[in-house]
Protein backbone atom coordinates (compact mmCIF):
# COMPACT_ATOMS: atom_id res chain seq x y z
CA UNK A 1 0.00 0.00 0.00
CA UNK A 2 1.27 3.39 -0.91
CA UNK A 3 0.63 6.10 1.61
CA UNK A 4 0.36 9.79 0.74
CA UNK A 5 2.87 11.64 2.90
CA UNK A 6 3.13 15.01 1.25
CA UNK A 7 0.81 16.95 -1.02
CA UNK A 8 -0.02 20.44 -2.17
CA UNK A 9 -1.99 22.18 0.59
CA UNK A 10 -5.61 22.81 -0.36
CA UNK A 11 -5.06 26.46 0.52
CA UNK A 12 -2.66 26.85 -2.41
CA UNK A 13 -4.21 27.27 -5.84
CA UNK A 14 -1.55 25.22 -7.63
CA UNK A 15 -0.60 28.15 -9.82
CA UNK A 16 3.15 28.18 -10.39
CA UNK A 17 4.94 30.77 -8.23
CA UNK A 18 6.50 33.71 -10.03
CA UNK A 19 9.29 34.12 -7.48
CA UNK A 20 13.00 33.98 -8.33
CA UNK A 21 15.07 30.86 -7.54
CA UNK A 22 16.20 30.94 -3.92
CA UNK A 23 13.58 33.44 -2.81
CA UNK A 24 11.84 32.56 0.45
CA UNK A 25 8.36 33.75 -0.52
CA UNK A 26 7.57 30.27 -1.82
CA UNK A 27 8.43 28.57 1.48
CA UNK A 28 6.42 31.07 3.50
CA UNK A 29 3.41 30.84 1.14
CA UNK A 30 3.40 27.10 1.65
CA UNK A 31 3.65 27.41 5.43
CA UNK A 32 0.73 29.84 5.54
CA UNK A 33 -1.30 27.47 3.36
CA UNK A 34 -0.46 24.47 5.54
CA UNK A 35 -1.48 26.37 8.68
CA UNK A 36 -4.79 27.45 7.14
CA UNK A 37 -5.44 23.85 6.08
CA UNK A 38 -4.63 22.53 9.53
CA UNK A 39 -6.87 25.08 11.19
CA UNK A 40 -9.63 24.18 8.74
CA UNK A 41 -10.43 27.81 7.95
CA UNK A 42 -9.71 28.06 4.20
CA UNK A 43 -13.34 28.61 3.30
CA UNK A 44 -13.60 31.45 5.79
CA UNK A 45 -10.27 33.16 5.10
CA UNK A 46 -9.60 36.27 3.02
CA UNK A 47 -6.11 37.15 1.79
CA UNK A 48 -4.93 40.72 1.29
CA UNK A 49 -1.90 40.87 -1.01
CA UNK A 50 0.43 43.88 -0.98
CA UNK A 51 2.32 45.83 -3.62
CA UNK A 52 5.73 44.28 -4.14
CA UNK A 53 6.95 40.89 -5.34
CA UNK A 54 4.08 39.18 -3.54
CA UNK A 55 1.48 41.30 -5.36
CA UNK A 56 0.46 38.02 -7.02
CA UNK A 57 -0.09 36.24 -3.70
CA UNK A 58 -3.86 36.43 -4.24
CA UNK A 59 -3.38 34.10 -7.22
CA UNK A 60 -1.34 31.56 -5.28
CA UNK A 61 -3.74 31.12 -2.37
CA UNK A 62 -6.92 29.18 -2.99
CA UNK A 63 -9.29 31.60 -1.26
CA UNK A 64 -11.03 34.94 -1.74
CA UNK A 65 -8.44 37.65 -2.20
CA UNK A 66 -7.56 41.18 -3.16
CA UNK A 67 -4.57 43.50 -3.54
CA UNK A 68 -4.31 46.50 -1.26
CA UNK A 69 -2.76 49.79 -2.28
CA UNK A 70 0.92 50.01 -1.31
CA UNK A 71 1.23 49.75 2.46
CA UNK A 72 -2.50 49.80 3.14
CA UNK A 73 -3.14 46.08 3.58
CA UNK A 74 -3.78 46.42 7.35
CA UNK A 75 -6.41 49.10 6.64
CA UNK A 76 -8.06 46.96 3.96
CA UNK A 77 -8.00 43.97 6.31
CA UNK A 78 -9.48 46.14 9.08
CA UNK A 79 -12.37 47.10 6.80
CA UNK A 80 -12.99 43.46 5.96
CA UNK A 81 -12.77 42.22 9.53
CA UNK A 82 -15.02 44.97 10.89
CA UNK A 83 -17.57 44.20 8.19
CA UNK A 84 -17.32 40.42 8.59
CA UNK A 85 -15.97 39.52 12.05
CA UNK A 86 -16.97 35.91 11.37
CA UNK A 87 -14.29 35.61 8.67
CA UNK A 88 -10.49 35.38 9.04
CA UNK A 89 -8.31 37.94 7.31
CA UNK A 90 -4.59 37.99 6.77
CA UNK A 91 -2.23 40.40 5.06
CA UNK A 92 1.00 39.34 3.40
CA UNK A 93 3.44 42.24 3.15
CA UNK A 94 7.03 43.00 2.31
CA UNK A 95 9.38 45.40 4.08
CA UNK A 96 8.82 48.36 1.73
CA UNK A 97 5.08 47.89 2.00
CA UNK A 98 4.88 47.38 5.76
CA UNK A 99 7.89 49.24 7.18
CA UNK A 100 8.06 52.29 4.86
CA UNK A 101 4.90 53.49 3.15
CA UNK A 102 2.55 51.50 5.37
CA UNK A 103 4.06 52.22 8.77
CA UNK A 104 1.03 54.16 10.00
CA UNK A 105 -1.45 51.47 9.00
CA UNK A 106 0.45 48.59 10.60
CA UNK A 107 1.09 50.54 13.82
CA UNK A 108 -2.54 51.50 14.22
CA UNK A 109 -3.99 48.13 13.23
CA UNK A 110 -1.68 46.51 15.78
CA UNK A 111 -2.43 49.07 18.45
CA UNK A 112 -6.19 48.75 17.95
CA UNK A 113 -5.73 45.03 18.49
CA UNK A 114 -7.35 44.46 15.13
CA UNK A 115 -8.18 40.77 14.91
CA UNK A 116 -6.19 40.15 11.77
CA UNK A 117 -2.96 38.30 10.99
CA UNK A 118 0.04 39.76 9.19
CA UNK A 119 2.86 37.85 7.52
CA UNK A 120 5.78 40.23 7.13
CA UNK A 121 8.61 39.30 4.76
CA UNK A 122 11.80 41.19 5.60
CA UNK A 123 14.48 40.73 2.94
CA UNK A 124 16.15 44.11 3.51
CA UNK A 125 15.48 45.34 -0.02
CA UNK A 126 12.81 46.40 -2.54
CA UNK A 127 12.46 43.40 -4.84
CA UNK A 128 9.74 44.25 -7.34
CA UNK A 129 11.12 47.67 -8.25
CA UNK A 130 14.64 46.32 -8.71
CA UNK A 131 16.74 46.43 -5.57
CA UNK A 132 16.37 49.85 -3.98
CA UNK A 133 17.04 50.58 -0.31
CA UNK A 134 14.33 49.33 2.04
CA UNK A 135 13.75 50.67 5.56
CA UNK A 136 15.21 47.35 6.71
CA UNK A 137 18.36 47.56 4.54
CA UNK A 138 21.43 46.95 6.68
CA UNK A 139 24.03 49.66 7.32
CA UNK A 140 26.72 49.54 4.68
CA UNK A 141 24.56 47.41 2.41
CA UNK A 142 24.71 48.39 -1.24
CA UNK A 143 21.44 48.79 -3.13
CA UNK A 144 20.56 50.62 -6.35
CA UNK A 145 19.75 53.74 -4.31
CA UNK A 146 22.57 53.32 -1.80
CA UNK A 147 25.38 52.62 -4.28
CA UNK A 148 27.97 53.59 -1.63
CA UNK A 149 26.28 51.50 1.03
CA UNK A 150 23.56 52.54 3.49
CA UNK A 151 24.90 55.41 5.55
CA UNK A 152 23.19 55.99 8.89
CA UNK A 153 23.94 59.73 8.77
CA UNK A 154 22.21 60.09 5.41
CA UNK A 155 19.78 57.17 5.21
CA UNK A 156 18.94 56.47 8.83
CA UNK A 157 19.02 53.12 10.55
CA UNK A 158 17.48 49.73 9.77
CA UNK A 159 13.84 49.62 10.95
CA UNK A 160 13.00 47.08 13.64
CA UNK A 161 9.28 46.54 13.29
CA UNK A 162 8.88 43.80 15.92
CA UNK A 163 10.74 45.93 18.47
CA UNK A 164 8.39 48.88 17.74
CA UNK A 165 5.24 46.78 17.67
CA UNK A 166 5.89 44.82 20.83
CA UNK A 167 4.98 47.93 22.83
CA UNK A 168 1.51 48.06 21.30
CA UNK A 169 -1.06 46.76 23.78
CA UNK A 170 -3.29 45.37 21.03
CA UNK A 171 -0.69 42.87 19.87
CA UNK A 172 -1.53 39.28 20.84
CA UNK A 173 1.27 37.48 19.07
CA UNK A 174 4.51 38.74 17.58
CA UNK A 175 7.55 36.78 16.45
CA UNK A 176 10.57 37.07 14.18
CA UNK A 177 11.76 33.90 12.46
CA UNK A 178 13.73 32.65 9.47
CA UNK A 179 13.37 29.70 7.12
CA UNK A 180 16.98 28.84 6.31
CA UNK A 181 16.96 25.39 7.98
CA UNK A 182 14.26 22.71 8.38
CA UNK A 183 14.14 23.48 12.11
CA UNK A 184 13.56 27.16 11.33
CA UNK A 185 10.84 26.25 8.86
CA UNK A 186 9.07 24.28 11.61
CA UNK A 187 9.46 27.17 14.07
CA UNK A 188 8.09 29.61 11.50
CA UNK A 189 5.10 27.39 10.86
CA UNK A 190 4.36 27.24 14.59
CA UNK A 191 4.64 31.02 14.81
CA UNK A 192 2.31 31.51 11.85
CA UNK A 193 -0.20 29.17 13.44
CA UNK A 194 -0.10 31.16 16.65
CA UNK A 195 -0.53 34.42 14.77
CA UNK A 196 -3.70 32.95 13.24
CA UNK A 197 -4.85 31.57 16.59
CA UNK A 198 -4.54 35.07 18.06
CA UNK A 199 -7.18 36.06 15.53
CA UNK A 200 -9.32 32.94 15.77
CA UNK A 201 -9.45 33.18 19.55
CA UNK A 202 -10.27 36.87 19.28
CA UNK A 203 -7.30 37.94 21.41
CA UNK A 204 -5.85 40.58 19.10
CA UNK A 205 -3.39 41.35 16.36
CA UNK A 206 -0.85 38.71 15.30
CA UNK A 207 2.26 39.13 13.17
CA UNK A 208 5.20 37.00 12.12
CA UNK A 209 8.24 38.70 10.60
CA UNK A 210 10.19 36.25 8.48
CA UNK A 211 13.77 37.14 7.57
CA UNK A 212 14.04 36.20 3.91
CA UNK A 213 16.51 36.13 1.06
CA UNK A 214 16.48 38.05 -2.19
CA UNK A 215 19.31 36.43 -4.18
CA UNK A 216 18.39 38.36 -7.35
CA UNK A 217 18.67 41.83 -5.83
CA UNK A 218 21.38 40.94 -3.35
CA UNK A 219 23.42 39.74 -6.34
CA UNK A 220 24.12 36.32 -4.82
CA UNK A 221 23.43 32.69 -5.57
CA UNK A 222 20.75 31.15 -3.31
CA UNK A 223 23.23 29.37 -1.02
CA UNK A 224 25.38 32.47 -0.46
CA UNK A 225 22.19 34.40 0.18
CA UNK A 226 21.18 31.96 2.95
CA UNK A 227 24.61 32.33 4.46
CA UNK A 228 24.46 36.12 4.23
CA UNK A 229 21.08 36.11 5.94
CA UNK A 230 22.48 34.03 8.82
CA UNK A 231 25.65 36.07 9.19
CA UNK A 232 24.40 39.61 8.57
CA UNK A 233 20.65 39.82 9.02
CA UNK A 234 20.20 37.69 12.14
CA UNK A 235 22.61 39.78 14.28
CA UNK A 236 20.77 42.95 13.22
CA UNK A 237 17.31 41.40 13.58
CA UNK A 238 17.38 38.97 16.52
CA UNK A 239 14.96 36.08 16.21
CA UNK A 240 12.44 35.37 18.89
CA UNK A 241 8.94 35.61 20.22
CA UNK A 242 8.26 39.17 21.31
CA UNK A 243 4.64 38.80 22.42
CA UNK A 244 2.62 35.66 23.05
CA UNK A 245 -0.81 36.02 24.64
CA UNK A 246 -2.11 32.98 22.79
CA UNK A 247 -0.65 30.44 25.17
CA UNK A 248 -0.03 26.79 24.47
CA UNK A 249 -1.86 25.08 21.72
CA UNK A 250 -4.44 22.53 22.79
Amino acid at each position, binding site marked *: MRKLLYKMPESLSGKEFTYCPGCHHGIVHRLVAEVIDELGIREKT*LVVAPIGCSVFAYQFFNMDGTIAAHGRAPAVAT*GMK*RARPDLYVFTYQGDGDLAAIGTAEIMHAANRGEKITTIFINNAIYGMTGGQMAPTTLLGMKTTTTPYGRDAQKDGYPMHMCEFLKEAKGVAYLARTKVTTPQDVEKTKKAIKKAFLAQIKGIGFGMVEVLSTCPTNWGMDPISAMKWLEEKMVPEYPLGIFVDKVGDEK
Partner: protein
Amino acid sequence: MEKVMVKGTEAIGEAAIRAGCRHFFGYPITPQSELPEYMSKRLPEVGGVFLQTESEVATVNMLYGAACTGTRVMTSTSSPGFSLMMEGVSYMACAQLPAVFVNVVRGGPGLGDIQPAQGDYWQATKGGGHGDYKLIVLAPSTVQEAVDLTVLAFDLADKYRTPTLILADGLLGQMMEPVTFPEFRDLSTLPDHSSWAMTGAKDREPHIITSFDIDPYILEKMNLELVEKYKEIEKNEVRWEEFMTEDAEIVITAFGTVARIAKSVVEMARKDGIKVGLFRPITVWPYPYEPLKKLTEKVDLFFDVEMNMGQMLEDVKLAIGDKKPVAFYSRMGGVVPTPTEIYEALKKEIGRRV
Protein backbone atom coordinates in the same frame (compact mmCIF):
# COMPACT_ATOMS: atom_id res chain seq x y z
CA MET B 1 -43.85 61.36 7.94
CA GLU B 2 -42.96 63.84 10.60
CA LYS B 3 -40.60 66.70 9.90
CA VAL B 4 -37.61 67.17 12.17
CA MET B 5 -35.15 70.04 12.44
CA VAL B 6 -31.68 68.75 11.76
CA LYS B 7 -28.20 69.87 10.74
CA GLY B 8 -26.98 68.94 7.23
CA THR B 9 -24.10 66.70 8.31
CA GLU B 10 -26.25 64.80 10.82
CA ALA B 11 -29.08 64.50 8.31
CA ILE B 12 -26.71 62.76 5.90
CA GLY B 13 -25.63 60.37 8.65
CA GLU B 14 -29.17 59.46 9.63
CA ALA B 15 -30.15 59.05 5.98
CA ALA B 16 -27.22 56.67 5.47
CA ILE B 17 -28.32 54.52 8.39
CA ARG B 18 -31.87 54.44 7.08
CA ALA B 19 -30.47 53.42 3.68
CA GLY B 20 -28.96 50.35 5.34
CA CYS B 21 -25.41 51.57 5.97
CA ARG B 22 -24.01 50.02 9.14
CA HIS B 23 -20.30 50.76 8.65
CA PHE B 24 -18.64 54.15 8.85
CA PHE B 25 -14.92 54.86 8.88
CA GLY B 26 -13.76 58.44 9.26
CA TYR B 27 -11.17 60.96 10.38
CA PRO B 28 -12.04 64.32 11.95
CA ILE B 29 -11.81 67.42 9.77
CA THR B 30 -13.72 70.68 9.87
CA PRO B 31 -16.42 71.39 8.70
CA GLN B 32 -17.82 67.86 8.75
CA SER B 33 -16.78 66.40 12.11
CA GLU B 34 -20.41 66.38 13.29
CA LEU B 35 -21.06 63.56 10.82
CA PRO B 36 -18.54 61.07 12.29
CA GLU B 37 -19.58 62.25 15.76
CA TYR B 38 -23.21 61.51 14.93
CA MET B 39 -22.29 58.09 13.51
CA SER B 40 -20.17 57.21 16.55
CA LYS B 41 -23.25 57.69 18.72
CA ARG B 42 -25.91 56.38 16.37
CA LEU B 43 -24.32 53.31 14.72
CA PRO B 44 -23.91 51.28 17.94
CA GLU B 45 -27.65 51.84 18.58
CA VAL B 46 -28.47 49.98 15.37
CA GLY B 47 -25.78 47.29 15.65
CA GLY B 48 -23.40 49.07 13.31
CA VAL B 49 -19.68 49.79 13.37
CA PHE B 50 -18.04 53.20 13.69
CA LEU B 51 -14.27 53.40 13.55
CA GLN B 52 -12.20 56.56 13.88
CA THR B 53 -9.23 55.98 11.60
CA GLU B 54 -5.61 57.10 11.82
CA SER B 55 -5.84 59.07 8.55
CA GLU B 56 -7.93 59.60 5.46
CA VAL B 57 -5.51 57.29 3.66
CA ALA B 58 -6.43 54.51 6.06
CA THR B 59 -10.10 55.48 5.83
CA VAL B 60 -10.42 54.94 2.11
CA ASN B 61 -8.63 51.62 2.34
CA MET B 62 -10.93 50.47 5.14
CA LEU B 63 -13.82 51.36 2.86
CA TYR B 64 -12.14 49.29 0.16
CA GLY B 65 -11.92 46.33 2.54
CA ALA B 66 -15.47 46.61 3.85
CA ALA B 67 -16.82 47.09 0.31
CA CYS B 68 -14.98 43.92 -0.80
CA THR B 69 -17.29 41.96 1.50
CA GLY B 70 -20.36 43.50 -0.15
CA THR B 71 -21.22 45.65 2.85
CA ARG B 72 -22.79 49.13 2.56
CA VAL B 73 -20.09 51.47 3.80
CA MET B 74 -19.52 55.20 4.01
CA THR B 75 -17.15 57.95 4.99
CA SER B 76 -17.25 61.70 5.05
CA THR B 77 -14.46 64.21 4.88
CA SER B 78 -13.62 67.71 3.73
CA SER B 79 -11.42 68.87 0.86
CA PRO B 80 -7.82 68.14 2.00
CA GLY B 81 -9.06 64.84 3.41
CA PHE B 82 -10.66 63.88 0.12
CA SER B 83 -7.40 64.66 -1.68
CA LEU B 84 -5.70 62.13 0.59
CA MET B 85 -8.29 59.51 -0.38
CA MET B 86 -7.78 59.88 -4.11
CA GLU B 87 -5.49 56.88 -4.62
CA GLY B 88 -7.91 54.57 -2.87
CA VAL B 89 -10.90 56.01 -4.72
CA SER B 90 -9.14 55.22 -7.99
CA TYR B 91 -8.50 51.65 -6.78
CA MET B 92 -12.14 51.28 -5.79
CA ALA B 93 -13.41 52.61 -9.12
CA CYS B 94 -11.26 50.09 -11.01
CA ALA B 95 -12.04 47.22 -8.63
CA GLN B 96 -15.74 48.15 -9.03
CA LEU B 97 -16.44 48.53 -5.34
CA PRO B 98 -19.58 50.30 -4.15
CA ALA B 99 -19.22 52.88 -1.38
CA VAL B 100 -20.50 56.33 -0.53
CA PHE B 101 -18.18 59.28 0.08
CA VAL B 102 -19.25 62.68 1.35
CA ASN B 103 -17.03 65.68 0.66
CA VAL B 104 -18.15 68.71 2.65
CA VAL B 105 -16.10 71.11 0.56
CA ARG B 106 -14.19 73.96 2.23
CA GLY B 107 -12.06 76.79 0.89
CA GLY B 108 -8.84 75.82 -0.86
CA PRO B 109 -6.41 75.11 -2.40
CA GLY B 110 -3.95 73.82 0.17
CA LEU B 111 -5.01 74.18 3.76
CA GLY B 112 -7.44 76.87 2.61
CA ASP B 113 -10.00 77.65 5.28
CA ILE B 114 -13.06 76.02 6.82
CA GLN B 115 -15.72 78.09 5.07
CA PRO B 116 -18.03 76.79 2.31
CA ALA B 117 -16.60 76.54 -1.20
CA GLN B 118 -16.96 74.62 -4.46
CA GLY B 119 -13.33 74.34 -5.49
CA ASP B 120 -13.38 70.53 -5.57
CA TYR B 121 -15.70 70.29 -8.58
CA TRP B 122 -12.92 69.32 -10.96
CA GLN B 123 -11.51 66.80 -8.51
CA ALA B 124 -14.96 65.27 -8.09
CA THR B 125 -16.09 65.20 -11.69
CA LYS B 126 -12.95 65.01 -13.82
CA GLY B 127 -10.97 62.36 -11.98
CA GLY B 128 -9.03 63.50 -8.95
CA GLY B 129 -7.14 60.26 -8.65
CA HIS B 130 -5.02 58.57 -11.30
CA GLY B 131 -6.23 56.73 -14.35
CA ASP B 132 -9.46 56.61 -16.36
CA TYR B 133 -12.42 56.55 -14.03
CA LYS B 134 -15.51 58.45 -13.02
CA LEU B 135 -17.49 58.83 -9.84
CA ILE B 136 -21.21 59.36 -9.70
CA VAL B 137 -21.37 62.80 -8.10
CA LEU B 138 -24.53 64.13 -6.48
CA ALA B 139 -24.76 67.80 -5.48
CA PRO B 140 -27.55 68.57 -3.01
CA SER B 141 -28.69 72.14 -2.43
CA THR B 142 -30.93 71.67 0.62
CA VAL B 143 -30.75 69.47 3.70
CA GLN B 144 -33.81 67.53 2.53
CA GLU B 145 -32.14 66.90 -0.79
CA ALA B 146 -28.96 65.81 1.01
CA VAL B 147 -31.09 63.18 2.77
CA ASP B 148 -32.73 62.00 -0.44
CA LEU B 149 -29.47 61.93 -2.40
CA THR B 150 -27.67 60.02 0.35
CA VAL B 151 -30.21 57.22 0.01
CA LEU B 152 -29.92 57.39 -3.77
CA ALA B 153 -26.10 57.36 -3.53
CA PHE B 154 -26.16 53.95 -1.82
CA ASP B 155 -28.57 52.55 -4.39
CA LEU B 156 -26.54 53.86 -7.33
CA ALA B 157 -23.25 52.68 -5.80
CA ASP B 158 -24.70 49.18 -5.47
CA LYS B 159 -26.46 49.17 -8.83
CA TYR B 160 -23.34 50.16 -10.76
CA ARG B 161 -20.72 48.81 -8.33
CA THR B 162 -18.98 52.16 -8.20
CA PRO B 163 -17.90 54.70 -5.60
CA THR B 164 -20.45 57.51 -5.37
CA LEU B 165 -19.82 60.97 -4.00
CA ILE B 166 -22.07 63.48 -2.26
CA LEU B 167 -20.53 66.84 -3.13
CA ALA B 168 -21.72 69.14 -0.37
CA ASP B 169 -20.19 72.24 1.14
CA GLY B 170 -19.70 73.75 4.55
CA LEU B 171 -22.90 75.80 4.31
CA LEU B 172 -25.12 72.80 3.67
CA GLY B 173 -23.26 70.78 6.27
CA GLN B 174 -23.73 73.34 9.04
CA MET B 175 -27.23 74.54 8.19
CA MET B 176 -30.32 73.34 10.07
CA GLU B 177 -33.51 72.70 8.14
CA PRO B 178 -36.70 70.72 8.64
CA VAL B 179 -36.50 67.36 6.87
CA THR B 180 -38.49 64.20 6.43
CA PHE B 181 -36.45 61.01 6.75
CA PRO B 182 -37.27 57.88 4.79
CA GLU B 183 -38.28 54.66 6.54
CA PHE B 184 -35.53 52.30 7.69
CA ARG B 185 -34.44 49.99 4.91
CA ASP B 186 -35.08 46.35 5.69
CA LEU B 187 -31.52 45.00 5.56
CA SER B 188 -32.69 41.72 4.04
CA THR B 189 -33.76 43.68 0.95
CA LEU B 190 -30.30 45.10 0.26
CA PRO B 191 -28.80 44.11 -3.13
CA ASP B 192 -27.28 40.63 -3.33
CA HIS B 193 -23.53 40.83 -3.93
CA SER B 194 -22.82 37.13 -3.47
CA SER B 195 -21.72 36.71 -7.09
CA TRP B 196 -18.57 38.79 -6.57
CA ALA B 197 -18.06 39.72 -2.91
CA MET B 198 -15.33 38.26 -0.71
CA THR B 199 -17.31 36.17 1.75
CA GLY B 200 -15.18 33.03 1.94
CA ALA B 201 -14.66 30.56 -0.93
CA LYS B 202 -16.97 27.82 0.33
CA ASP B 203 -18.27 25.48 -2.36
CA ARG B 204 -17.22 27.88 -5.09
CA GLU B 205 -14.17 29.25 -6.87
CA PRO B 206 -12.37 32.08 -5.05
CA HIS B 207 -13.61 35.61 -5.66
CA ILE B 208 -10.73 37.89 -6.59
CA ILE B 209 -11.17 41.65 -6.46
CA THR B 210 -8.37 43.77 -7.86
CA SER B 211 -7.68 46.94 -9.80
CA PHE B 212 -4.74 45.20 -11.41
CA ASP B 213 -3.62 43.13 -14.33
CA ILE B 214 -0.05 42.98 -15.56
CA ASP B 215 -1.23 42.14 -19.09
CA PRO B 216 -2.09 45.39 -20.90
CA TYR B 217 -4.63 43.67 -23.14
CA ILE B 218 -6.53 42.40 -20.11
CA LEU B 219 -6.26 45.74 -18.32
CA GLU B 220 -7.60 47.42 -21.45
CA LYS B 221 -10.59 45.08 -21.30
CA MET B 222 -11.13 46.18 -17.70
CA ASN B 223 -10.90 49.80 -18.86
CA LEU B 224 -13.46 49.17 -21.58
CA GLU B 225 -15.79 47.54 -19.11
CA LEU B 226 -15.65 50.72 -17.05
CA VAL B 227 -16.24 52.84 -20.15
CA GLU B 228 -19.37 50.80 -20.94
CA LYS B 229 -20.58 51.20 -17.38
CA TYR B 230 -20.02 54.95 -17.46
CA LYS B 231 -21.97 55.18 -20.72
CA GLU B 232 -24.82 53.33 -19.06
CA ILE B 233 -24.74 55.73 -16.11
CA GLU B 234 -24.70 58.70 -18.48
CA LYS B 235 -27.74 57.26 -20.23
CA ASN B 236 -29.78 56.51 -17.10
CA GLU B 237 -28.77 58.72 -14.24
CA VAL B 238 -28.63 62.34 -15.35
CA ARG B 239 -30.58 64.47 -12.92
CA TRP B 240 -31.21 68.21 -12.86
CA GLU B 241 -33.71 70.85 -11.80
CA GLU B 242 -35.07 73.73 -13.81
CA PHE B 243 -36.67 76.69 -12.05
CA MET B 244 -38.71 79.17 -14.06
CA THR B 245 -36.93 78.35 -17.30
CA GLU B 246 -40.14 78.04 -19.40
CA ASP B 247 -40.11 81.65 -20.51
CA ALA B 248 -36.61 82.60 -19.36
CA GLU B 249 -34.43 84.85 -21.51
CA ILE B 250 -31.55 84.57 -19.07
CA VAL B 251 -30.65 81.34 -17.28
CA ILE B 252 -28.39 81.13 -14.25
CA THR B 253 -26.42 77.90 -14.02
CA ALA B 254 -25.34 76.88 -10.53
CA PHE B 255 -25.03 73.80 -8.34
CA GLY B 256 -25.30 73.04 -4.63
CA THR B 257 -25.50 75.89 -2.17
CA VAL B 258 -25.04 78.58 -4.83
CA ALA B 259 -28.03 77.26 -6.78
CA ARG B 260 -30.14 77.80 -3.71
CA ILE B 261 -28.95 81.41 -3.47
CA ALA B 262 -29.53 81.80 -7.21
CA LYS B 263 -33.20 80.91 -6.72
CA SER B 264 -33.58 84.09 -4.69
CA VAL B 265 -31.85 85.98 -7.51
CA VAL B 266 -34.39 84.58 -9.99
CA GLU B 267 -37.21 85.79 -7.76
CA MET B 268 -35.62 89.25 -7.35
CA ALA B 269 -35.21 89.59 -11.12
CA ARG B 270 -38.74 88.40 -11.84
CA LYS B 271 -40.08 91.11 -9.51
CA ASP B 272 -38.25 93.63 -11.70
CA GLY B 273 -39.76 92.07 -14.83
CA ILE B 274 -36.52 90.41 -16.00
CA LYS B 275 -37.17 86.88 -17.21
CA VAL B 276 -34.52 84.89 -15.40
CA GLY B 277 -34.55 81.15 -14.75
CA LEU B 278 -32.25 78.66 -13.05
CA PHE B 279 -30.68 75.47 -14.34
CA ARG B 280 -29.30 73.32 -11.53
CA PRO B 281 -27.45 70.07 -12.18
CA ILE B 282 -28.18 67.54 -9.41
CA THR B 283 -25.77 65.00 -10.86
CA VAL B 284 -22.62 66.94 -11.70
CA TRP B 285 -21.37 63.66 -13.12
CA PRO B 286 -23.04 62.49 -15.26
CA TYR B 287 -23.53 66.12 -16.28
CA PRO B 288 -26.87 67.19 -17.79
CA TYR B 289 -25.32 68.45 -21.04
CA GLU B 290 -28.34 67.71 -23.26
CA PRO B 291 -31.06 69.40 -21.18
CA LEU B 292 -28.82 72.44 -20.77
CA LYS B 293 -28.08 72.49 -24.50
CA LYS B 294 -31.82 72.41 -25.19
CA LEU B 295 -32.24 75.71 -23.37
CA THR B 296 -30.03 77.47 -25.93
CA GLU B 297 -33.01 77.44 -28.31
CA LYS B 298 -34.87 80.11 -26.32
CA VAL B 299 -32.38 81.62 -23.88
CA ASP B 300 -30.27 84.65 -24.83
CA LEU B 301 -27.71 84.62 -22.03
CA PHE B 302 -26.36 82.07 -19.60
CA PHE B 303 -24.94 83.28 -16.31
CA ASP B 304 -22.84 80.76 -14.43
CA VAL B 305 -22.35 81.39 -10.71
CA GLU B 306 -20.00 79.33 -8.57
CA MET B 307 -17.83 79.47 -5.47
CA ASN B 308 -14.66 78.64 -7.39
CA MET B 309 -12.62 80.03 -10.29
CA GLY B 310 -15.04 78.68 -12.89
CA GLN B 311 -14.92 74.92 -12.74
CA MET B 312 -18.44 73.88 -13.73
CA LEU B 313 -18.21 76.74 -16.22
CA GLU B 314 -16.26 74.39 -18.48
CA ASP B 315 -19.16 71.93 -18.55
CA VAL B 316 -21.66 74.73 -19.11
CA LYS B 317 -19.61 75.88 -22.09
CA LEU B 318 -19.32 72.30 -23.35
CA ALA B 319 -23.12 72.08 -23.34
CA ILE B 320 -23.76 75.48 -24.87
CA GLY B 321 -20.83 75.72 -27.25
CA ASP B 322 -20.87 78.94 -29.23
CA LYS B 323 -24.64 78.97 -29.54
CA LYS B 324 -25.15 81.56 -26.81
CA PRO B 325 -22.92 83.72 -24.60
CA VAL B 326 -21.95 82.46 -21.15
CA ALA B 327 -21.05 85.00 -18.47
CA PHE B 328 -19.54 84.09 -15.12
CA TYR B 329 -19.58 85.37 -11.56
CA SER B 330 -17.86 83.86 -8.58
CA ARG B 331 -16.60 84.26 -5.06
CA MET B 332 -13.81 82.11 -3.70
CA GLY B 333 -11.87 81.31 -0.57
CA GLY B 334 -14.96 80.44 1.42
CA VAL B 335 -16.85 83.66 0.64
CA VAL B 336 -20.53 82.97 -0.01
CA PRO B 337 -22.09 85.43 -2.47
CA THR B 338 -25.31 87.19 -1.44
CA PRO B 339 -28.37 87.22 -3.71
CA THR B 340 -28.02 91.00 -4.05
CA GLU B 341 -24.42 90.89 -5.24
CA ILE B 342 -25.22 88.14 -7.76
CA TYR B 343 -28.21 90.14 -8.99
CA GLU B 344 -26.10 93.29 -9.31
CA ALA B 345 -23.48 91.35 -11.28
CA LEU B 346 -26.20 89.93 -13.50
CA LYS B 347 -27.67 93.37 -14.17
CA LYS B 348 -24.23 94.70 -15.03
CA GLU B 349 -23.80 91.83 -17.47
CA ILE B 350 -27.16 92.57 -19.08
CA GLY B 351 -26.21 96.27 -19.33
CA ARG B 352 -22.99 95.36 -21.07
CA ARG B 353 -24.90 93.41 -23.68
CA VAL B 354 -27.74 95.89 -24.44
